[in-house]
C-alpha cells in the first residue's frame, strides 16, 4: 500500500497536504479506499463552510455503506473537488490525487502522523 512521505495522516484515515499558502488539501488514504471498497458517490460540503478538527465534513458512499469523512483540521472550506461528483472512482484509483476539499484559515489541527507512523498504525488496526 502506498503512503507518500510528504503527507500527514489522521487516525481516521484522511491525508492532509499542507500547501505553501497555508491552506491544506484533504483526502482519503489508500488504506481507507481499500477498506471502503468501490466508492460510488461523495457528499461534499460547500465552499465557505466551516470544518472542525475531529468532526465529519463529508461522507463517501459505496454500494452498501456510507462512511463519514472527518476533518483533521479546523478552518474554512476554500474549494471542493467537484470533479469527484461525476467521477467518484477517482477516490479508488488515485487516492492521493483525488483530494476532497481545500481548507484555508486553518486555526487548529489534530495530532497527525507521518507516513511511517501511519503505516504502523494501519498494521495495528489490521491485527487488532
Amino acid at each position, binding site marked *: 500500500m502506498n503512503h507518500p512521505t510528504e503527507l500527514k495522516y489522521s487516525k481516521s484515515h484522511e491525508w492532509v497536504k499542507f500547501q505553501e499558502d497555508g491552506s491544506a488539501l484533504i483526502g482519503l488514504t489508500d488504506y481507507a479506499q481499500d477498506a471502503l471498497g468501490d466508492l*460510488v*458517490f461523495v457528499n461534499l460540503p460547500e465552499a465557505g463552510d466551516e470544518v472542525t478538527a475531529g468532526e465529519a465534513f463529508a461522507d463517501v*458512499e*459505496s*454500494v*452498501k*455503506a*456510507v462512511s463519514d469523512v472527518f476533518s483533521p483540521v479546523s478552518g474554512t472550506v476554500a474549494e471542493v473537488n467537484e470533479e469527484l461528483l461525476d467521477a467518484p472512482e477517482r477516490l479508488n484509483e488515485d487516492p492521493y490525487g483525488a483530494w476532497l476539499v481545500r481548507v484555508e484559515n486553518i486555526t487548529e489541527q489534530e495530532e497527525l502522523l507521518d507516513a511511517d507512523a501511519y503505516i504502523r498504525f494501519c498494521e495495528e488496526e489490521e491485527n487488532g
Partner: protein
Amino acid sequence: MGTYLPNTKEEQQAMLREIGHGSFEELFAQIPEEVRLKELHLPKGLSEMETLDEMEAIAGKNHRFRWIFRGAGAYDHYIPAIVGSVTGKEEFLTAYTPYQAEISQGILQSIFEYQTMICELTGMDASNASVYDGATAAAEAAAMCRERKRETVYLSAAANPQVIEVVKTYCYGNGMRVVLVPERGGVTDPEALRELLDETAACFYVQQPNYYGNLEDAEALGRIAHEAGAKYIMGCNPISLAMLQTPGECGADIAVGEGQPLGLGLAFGGPYLGFMAATQKLVRRLPGRIVGETTDRDGKRAYVLTLQAREQHIRREKAGSNICSNQALCALTAAVYLSAMGAEGMWQAASLCVSKAHYLAGALEQAGLSLKYSRPFFHEFVTITNGKTKAILEALERADILGGLPLNENEMLWCATEKSAKAAMDRAAAIVKEVCGA
C-alpha cells in the same frame, strides 16, 4: 377453522421430538410467564366458504354507485382489462422488494419502465419507484427541499385539503414551518405568494389542476418561487399531464402526484400510488427505491436497485426518509395502464375529461346552478347550490348517482371523466333542475 399449515399435527409432533423438544411450550420457554396470554378473545376460525360469505355480506353493505360525479382526489376512470390480468400474476403479486436482482429482473425492469413513463409524463429527469400516495409524495418532496437556512414550506391553499393536512403532519414531525398561500378567485394568489416568500423559503407547492379543478398559471408561480430562491414543487393529476404544460416546462424542481387515475380502482381510498420525479440536480434527494440499468457479469443488460446509500437501511438516522415498502404493485398497474393507453389514448382520456366536465358544468348551469369560478378548468368545477346541496345529493342518490362533493351547504365540487356518459349527465342535470325548481 381455516389453516394454511401444511404440516399435520403428527408431523409437527415428530419435528418437535426430532429437535429435542417435548412440546410447543418448550419452544416458548424464553417468554416470561407474566406476559403469556391466557386467552385470545377472537371468534372461532372459518372455512373458506364461510369467510367468502362473510366478506361478501360485508361488501354488500356498501352501495356502489352506477354513476360517479365526484373526484376530490379519487377519480373514477376506465380500467383496461389487461391491467388486472397483469397485476394479478402471482409472481408480481407475491414477491418482496427486489433485493436479489437475479431473480427479480421482471420487477426491476417493470419499475425502470415505470420510472421512464413518469419522467415522460412530467417532463422531469428522474423518478423513484413510488411512495404511498399523492399526499405523502407532496410531504416527502417538501422534506427534500430543506436546506440549512431554508426550512419553510409554502403550500397553495387551493391544494387538496388532505394533501395540506398530510404535509402539515409531516412538518410537525420534522420541524419545518408551513405557510399557506391564499387563493383568490379559485387559484393561488400570485401577489400573495410573492409577498409571503422570504429567505427561509425551502419550497412552494402548487396543485395542477387545483382542488377546485381550476388551472393555475403554473409557469408564473414557478418563476415567483425561484425568484425567492425556493424550490418549486408541482402536484399534478397524471391524466391531465397528457395535455397540459408539463412540470418540466413550468420549471418545476419536483413533480409529484396521486397516480390513482392510472388504472387503480377507487377502493375506498387505497392502495393508491404516489409518484415523484425530480430534476437531475435533486436525484440523490429522492426518497425510496430507485432502479437503475447496468450490466451483469456476462455483459448483459440488467436492472438493480441503485443509489441505495440514500436509504434508511444504510444511512439510518441520516436518511432523508424512512420509506421502505412502497406501492410497487400500484406502480406496475400505472405502467401497464400507460402502455395500454399509449400517448394517443392518454390524450383521448384527457380530452374526454375536459369535454365531459364542460358539458356537465353547462348542463348543471342550465338546471339552475351557477359556476363559482369563471376560469379554465380540467375535469372538476365548483357550483353554487343556493343552499340546496343536501337535497340535490339525496335526489341524485335515489337515481344511483353520486353527486359532487359537498364543500358546504352552498357549494359542490363536481367531476366528470371519460366514464361520464352523456345520458347520465343529462339525467343528473334533470334531477338537479327538479330539486332547484327551475
